[in-house]
């Protein structure tokens, strides 16, 4: 998986939102934390893929007035997903350990 891939971003956002959220909340969370703009279409694709892999599960939730009374599809982070995310995150940390100073220096050169 590519670093910073949307799947991991979505899983973390889900985690931050208490492990359970609908698409609009996830979009806003990602936007707020990373400044990254996610289109709903891309998010649906990712959520579907995560559901196929068994990392998350979705169900039809309740409706709220700000949605114009429409129901929402809510997703919950599953154990399998948490395990995968943790594994990936530890892998990345391991890989990145001791390189951050050089990485910053390199990144600054480019700028």
């Amino acid at each position, binding site marked *: 998986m590519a670093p910073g891939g949307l799947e991991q971003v979505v899983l973390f956002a889900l985690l931050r939102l208490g492990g359970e959220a609908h698409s609009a909340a996830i979009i806003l969370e990602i936007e707020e934390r990373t400044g990254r703009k996610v*289109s*709903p*279409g891309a998010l649906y694709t990712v959520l579907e893929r995560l559901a196929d892999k068994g990392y998350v599960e979705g169900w039809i939730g309740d409706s709220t007035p700000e949605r114009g009374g429409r129901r929402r*599809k809510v997703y919950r982070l599953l154990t399998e997903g948490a395990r995968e995310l943790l594994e990936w995150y530890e892998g990345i940390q391991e890989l990145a350990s001791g390189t951050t100073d050089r990485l910053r220096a390199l990144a600054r050169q480019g700028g």
Partner: protein
Amino acid sequence: MWGVRLLRLLAWVMLPRRDREFVLGDLEELYVLRARHSGPWRAGLRTLRDLIGSSISGRAGFGHRALASELALAVRRFLHRPGRRLATALTLAIGIGATTAAFAAVDRVLLRDLPVDEQEELIVAWRASERTSIQLPFSGLAFDAVRRGAESLSGVAGYSAWGALPLLVETTDDAYPLNGVYVTGDFFGVIGARPSLGRLLERADDAPGAAPTAVLSHAAWRTRYGADPRIVGSTLVIDGQAFTVVGVAPQGFEYPIGTEIWYPMREAYADPPESGPAPELHLLGRMAPGVDPTTVVTDLTATLESDPRVRASIWEARNVVTGFEEKVVGPVRPVLRAAFIAALLLLLAAAANATLFLLAGGPSAAREIAVMRALGAEPRRVIGRHVADSAVVGALAGVGAVALAYLGVSTLVPLAPADLPRFDLVQLDARAVGVAIVLTVALTVATGVIAGLVLSRLNVLDALSSAGRTVGGGSAFRTAVTGLQVSLAVVSAVGAGLLLRTVAALDSLEPGFSVEDMTVVRLQTPYTWFDVPEDYLLALEQVVRDLEGRPGVIAARPSLGPPLQQRLEVTLRAEDQSDADMRTNPTVAVDAVLPGHFEALGIPLRSGRGLREMDNRADADPVVVVDEALARALWPGEDPIGERIVGYPGRSELVFTVVGVVAATRYRDFLEVHPRAYYPLRLLGNSPPSALLVRTSKEIPVRDLVTEAFAAADPRVRVMSVERMTDVLREPTSGRRFAASVLMSFALATLLVAALGVYSVFTVFVQERRREMGVRQALGAQRSSIVTLVLRRIANVAVVGATLGLVVALGASRAIASLLYGVAPTDPTTLTVVMLAVVFLALCAGLVPALRAAITDPMVSLRRE
């Protein structure tokens, strides 16, 4: 807020139903939150981007391919193999483009109201007789009587019965002709037209002795005066008189056809004119409420018959009343109707082709779809894919169609003959483009759905189990469609064929006088001429002598009027005829000529002699030369030489002896031989010769020579225009020629489209039967028998299609009956030739796939199993 509503609607359309609710909910929630931070506009834009972005990224909802991504795939398929789809787009573009252009013309010319008030109340009246094809005039006296007495009309105006005639406008450094019509003062008032500039003519302009005023047509104002608003209030010098231009008529109003300037007669209509020609008018009236044209006819007849003085002033004829709109656009209606039908035929054939092309991916497309189906794609998906394919093709077709329609309108409109009314209004406007868009969308969806339906009903197993042995999906359908195309081509070609024969018939008409080497010079003769006819006669004789002394001039002779426009029309009476007998005499176009007229014009003398010098002396015995048409009418089967006739206009006391008979000509009416009588010019009645016919042996500057000659002989006479005789004689047939060229191009396009259809259908046919043909060849079938097999099949389809087309054409050709000349709408030769030609063309189109099938090695065919 409408923006939100629009977004909702857009999203609703773009999203698949199953997930619409959730996606819409998310979008709305995001929008509400963002609107709180950054305002409704930016939030709206962002949401729109989300919406579009989500479609393009491939998933509009949960697990559904978005329409946009289906489109993206279709674009990819298009770019991968553009050939077939490009051909489809092009055929559709031609069909839609032609229909759009035809619609633009029909809409602008026929469907839009004329720039007048309540056009259905307006009528036009003239007088008609079995004795002539000419629409005879009312007298000024009759006009006055109708204005006072006819209760069926709430308003009556008059205008020159002879239509727009050229007038010479002179400026200090230039002189040019404008087509002018004299009208009564309330002409525009009765019509209820509003000026596009200044004011129109009023009753006060028409009072005897009023200052001369005139109104310009919108087209003349634009083309001649560069749409300069300062034209209002300026003066135009016509025939030595200064006319003040008071205004410009509304755009698209040009009645009578070709009018560039209207001017009031300033006559007391009830009294005979003191000088100049008496008014000869057609009437324009507004019907009182609840009145129909039949009532008007009765009313006119009663009004005119009640006063013997009035009755004596008009022709022995009946009154004819027709709707104003019919009179204005009537002549163009059959042309436009035919063009529109031809365009629709082309459109149908093109749409059929689009369907065929979408179907004719051959076995490979069929297999691809079969795979889709086998993998569980619903028929809806198959249709969706085809709609997307057609949408790409349709987008191209739509753009192409508008471009082609624009091209067609901008090239064809200037080519349209000037006597087609309102054609200057034709343009590709928003309505026409709207029609193009609607047609494109409708056809795109329809062809896509049809092709998808046919293919989705394929037998999946059959398609997969072989390399195309029995992938006959839609084979019968395809054959039927191409048969239909052949029918359409036949109908279109019959129309074009009939018009081509019409043009050929017109071309074979003999004018009866020399044309190729002849130049027609229109003269502006001063009104003051009426006081001194002798002077004018001498001047003309001097001009003729002068011109004939110049190198390159074979002969020059005056005539009362240029060809086709002569207005001196009389009824003559053989001396021994009673007044009652006279009523069945045909009307005669009179000419007053100089000696040598017939030799100069190349009109053969049949018997007796032509007019001589001595006949032109003031004390000469009155003589006349008649043409064969008049001789036949007055003295059928007899020798007319020595017979005597009465009735020269203005000289009713004279009895003329017939001294010669000449061949009949089409000088007065090109489509119909009109009787003519030639009098010595010395007997000039009340109408001056207004044309000089010059026959030349080489290219010489006729205008300069004639201008010089008149400058020396009588400078009051001006040269108005100089035209070749061939061009003048082309005018009455130009509408039919135009219709023929339009129909011909549409028919050729339809034939081409049908040929493409046959080609593509039989290419697939051959591919589908590759195995069968391989087996046949392997078993010893000759190549020729393979070709015969395919061609026989094509012949069957083509003959059935052509026969069907022929049946339709038999009924449809009546629609163009009024355009035909010298050929019947059901002309068997045309029908037969067209049918054979179309079948032959279909066979040619199918020959390529047939030959390809024959030269394929049977082993190759069989190995593909």
